[in-house]
């Protein structure tokens, strides 16, 4: 006999009751008077709510009545007796710490693998499926946007622009030409000395970057880095990765409060920064190869990078998006969009000897 309460479903009246099994029937009787049957039904006409923690169990009768009891053990036994205990496999998973901890470990490993390899691989695949027209559109859109809010027209003489453009484009090999790379010059305004690669193959140099250089080969080194971004579709991949992370965050914080959002949003931001650093490393590798193949001393990358770092250190108000001057702080790697300068200089070798300021021809 299992004690509990019965509700007939017509109204909210609570009938203290007890459940008994008689031959083929499950029967609910009055708690005070076991002869008074409240409901009786064959076993096939009842459903028992699956066990969940220590929640009261509900025995549903086909006629709409419900019997509620806190005696989980007795109901488990009853289900066993009725041959229905397989319905509680979830509860068995949920009650074993060892299984739960194994699942937790499996999830941590899966999440790590997805974040490290899954998301970048998916984004890379998607980036290569997108039509060229989309890249053109996105590139043009970005130039227009930057022209409106940051850039001013370049003050470099037109001849100098043409000369540099020719120097750059001469370096491209066949596979790079297929990306229809073009070069633009702009006054960088607040962002100062910098260079960007846009999805459609537009490479933008700021006047400040050109003026900072002491040798055209330094600019070729930077150009190589930006061509690396274009070749590997970094900007589009970064946008796709950002969307995937954004979608995952939106799904995770479904029922969480503002507090939960902070806890999820912070790792997401760190993650995007880490993706960005990986792209920069790939572009650096590309630039190194680019220079080596053309027999240009890779030290030209180091020399302009060192000068950029020195300039940023003197003038801390200049915010360089592309190259950040920082000492080799231990945590820098987690909080920066670019690899540490020291790491980059090591890759490209000792700075090349250049005469500065540049002699005007």
């Amino acid at each position: 006999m299992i004690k509990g309460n019965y509700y007939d479903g017509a109204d909210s009246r609570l009938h203290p009751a007890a459940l008994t099994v008689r031959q083929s029937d499950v029967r609910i009787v009055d708690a005070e008077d076991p002869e008074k049957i409240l409901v009786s039904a064959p076993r096939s006409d009842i459903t028992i709510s699956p066990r969940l923690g220590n929640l009261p169990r509900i025995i549903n009768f086909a006629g709409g009545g419900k019997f509620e009891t806190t005696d989980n053990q007795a109901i488990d036994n009853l289900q066993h007796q009725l041959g229905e205990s397989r319905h509680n496999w979830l509860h068995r998973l949920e009650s074993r710490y060892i299984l739960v901890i194994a699942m937790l470990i499996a999830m941590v490993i899966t999440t790590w693998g997805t974040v490290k390899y899954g998301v970048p691989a998916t984004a890379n695949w998607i980036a290569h499926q997108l039509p060229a027209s989309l890249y053109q559109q996105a590139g043009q859109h970005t130039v227009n946007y930057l022209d409106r809010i940051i850039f001013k027209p370049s003050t470099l003489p037109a001849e100098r622009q043409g000369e540099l453009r020719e120097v750059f484009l001469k370096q491209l090999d066949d596979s790079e030409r297929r990306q229809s790379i073009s070069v633009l010059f702009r006054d960088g305004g607040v962002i100062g000395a910098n260079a960007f690669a846009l999805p459609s193959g537009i490479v933008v140099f700021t006047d400040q970057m050109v003026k900072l250089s002491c040798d055209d080969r330094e600019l070729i080194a930077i150009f190589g880095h930006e061509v690396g971004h274009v070749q590997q579709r970094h900007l589009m991949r970064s946008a796709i990765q950002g969307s995937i992370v954004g979608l995952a965050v939106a799904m995770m914080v479904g029922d969480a409060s503002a507090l939960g959002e902070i806890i999820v949003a912070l790792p997401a931001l760190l993650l995007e920064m880490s993706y960005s650093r990986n792209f920069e490393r790939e572009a650096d590798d590309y630039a190194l190869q680019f220079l080596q193949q053309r027999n240009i001393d890779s030290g030209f990358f180091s020399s302009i990078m060192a000068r950029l770092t020195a300039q940023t250190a003197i003038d801390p108000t200049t915010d360089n998006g592309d190259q950040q001057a920082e000492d080799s702080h231990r945590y820098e790697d987690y909080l920066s969009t670019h690899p540490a300068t020291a790491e980059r200089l090591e890759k490209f070798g000792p700075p090349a000897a250049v005469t500065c300021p540049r002699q005007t021809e």
Partner: protein
Amino acid sequence: MEAVNTDQTANSEESAANPLPTTPQEHNFTFSGNGAEFFRIWIVNIFLSIITLGIYSAWAKVRTTRYFYGNTQVAGASFEYLANPITILKGRLIAVAVLAVYLFGGYLIPGIELLFLVLLFVGTPWLIVRSLAFNARNSAYRNIRFNFSGKTGMAAKEFIAFPLLLLPTLGLLFPYISFRQTRFVVDNHHYGKGNFNFSASAGAYYKLFAIAFAVMIGLLIAGSLLLAGSMAPAGPEEPPQISPGVIAFVLILYGGMAIVGVYVQVGMLNLFFNNAKLQEQGFQSSLKVSRMLWLHLTNLLGMLLTLGLFYPWAKVRIARYRAQQLSLMATGDLDNFAAAQIDDVSATGDELGEAFGIELGI
């Protein structure tokens, strides 16, 4: 028990002679879930959701909601969540499809996000009504289901038309709108054939928000004074630094926002329950700001220290405190609520609302 029985006898004798309403009998709500148990359920939910590529998440939602409903008890019976996981899955798939178009559509068709935001704004009343109806109809107590009968047109008035008046009234109407929205939600809820009604006055809401506003302004002034005090003229060569004054300002602002946020949350919940009635049955909620603030603060700390693994304990602690402070003030017995005919409702509104973060502040 003894004392209650004597009271009742005394009351019934008195009311026999003099038909006065009897003193309500207080039934305390209890929450009997615990963090360790919910932790295991939560991990299994996430694990199965991942390996089924999200399909299980509908079952996970039902299991989580059942856990919180079933562990909430009052007057000898627990609450029951009856939603069918398949219904939730359908709603969830639609919501994910819409969200994906929203997130990625902008790359293909620029400006589609804007169209979405407009649609979302216009569709909000529908989402709110469907979400409330879905949750109410799938909630039961003593084998009698709840219901929500609010209509989209009425919701549009409360959640769109009135809020449009905020700008011309410089926000002065905000407490009144909040009051109207709460009243709309409560008045349209039913338990079987029993009706809920909301008897608060707009004045109570004005008082709540006036205090919150005053505290916020006070903190802002205090913070600004601190900030101004620390702004000593720096040498021209010196690079700008983050001064202690700025840190204090930010801390005061964030701390102040948290306190005011919890103050408003607690005040709204207390107003909600203390003024809601189910026929002649009332409720009493006596949540304290200090206790709630302590719970939120320790929850945040626990989450940070355990990288989020504290989440199940955090949820259970809040649910337990809220139940502890809530009572049903029963006049007469609770046995006479008759069942009403209830139609099923799809979960699309509920899931869409969740995907786009539409939350009722009540």
